[in-house]
């Protein structure tokens, strides 16, 4: 398994502001992903964070709203921009190691927008 540290664990933010979530892994991983879990629902992939290049976004998610960085093999950030109450969700970082098929998840960031 991988030790994944995600910060902050929770936050309450004002609408119109932005929040950056950090994901740090204890060792090098091949792939890093960001998921959203809305209240009472399952996980939806936002994007794949690519090292040194632009993230690959899923349908319905755009870079202006969810800018992502991945400067190296162990760290990534997700920013939720110009937040509205509809952005209230749990945001999860996930990693995949070279040669492994199972993904591991961080503890999540519970975001409430008021």
């Amino acid at each position, binding site marked *: 398994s991988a030790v994944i540290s995600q910060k902050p664990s929770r936050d309450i933010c004002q609408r119109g502001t932005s929040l950056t979530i950090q994901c740090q892994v204890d060792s090098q991983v091949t792939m890093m992903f960001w998921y959203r879990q809305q209240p009472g629902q*399952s*996980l939806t*992939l936002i994007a794949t964070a690519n090292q040194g290049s632009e993230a690959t976004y899923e349908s319905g998610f755009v870079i202006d709203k969810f800018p992502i960085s991945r400067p190296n093999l162990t760290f990534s950030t997700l920013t939720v921009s110009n937040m509205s109450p509809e952005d209230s969700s749990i945001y999860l970082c996930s990693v995949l190691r070279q040669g492994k098929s199972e993904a591991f998840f961080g503890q999540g960031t519970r975001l409430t927008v008021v």
Partner: protein
Amino acid sequence: EDQVTQSPEALRLQEGESSSLNCSYTVSGLRGLFWYRQDPGKGPEFLFTLYSAGEEKEKERLKATLTKKESFLHITAPKPEDSATYLCAVQAVRAYGDYKLSFGAGTTVTVRA
């Protein structure tokens, strides 16, 4: 588009009462099917990966099986600590570098002492 349907949505069991959770899937080509456990306020915890029909995996009171259209998670003689939401996800065979997981909505299991 990949589709994953889990049933039932919720399951309430007495301690020791065995039961099964279902995960039906539609995918163009299955690379792997994954089971996760999620406790409230936490991220999903990996349980099993299944790759081909007929495969089975076991861990303590949990056993996962796979057919060409569905997977079952059997819980044998559950204990209160088995209470959690169980998530099923599929990974399809796609272009190199595309390892997206598609998740079902989950089954919330409550085990009463």
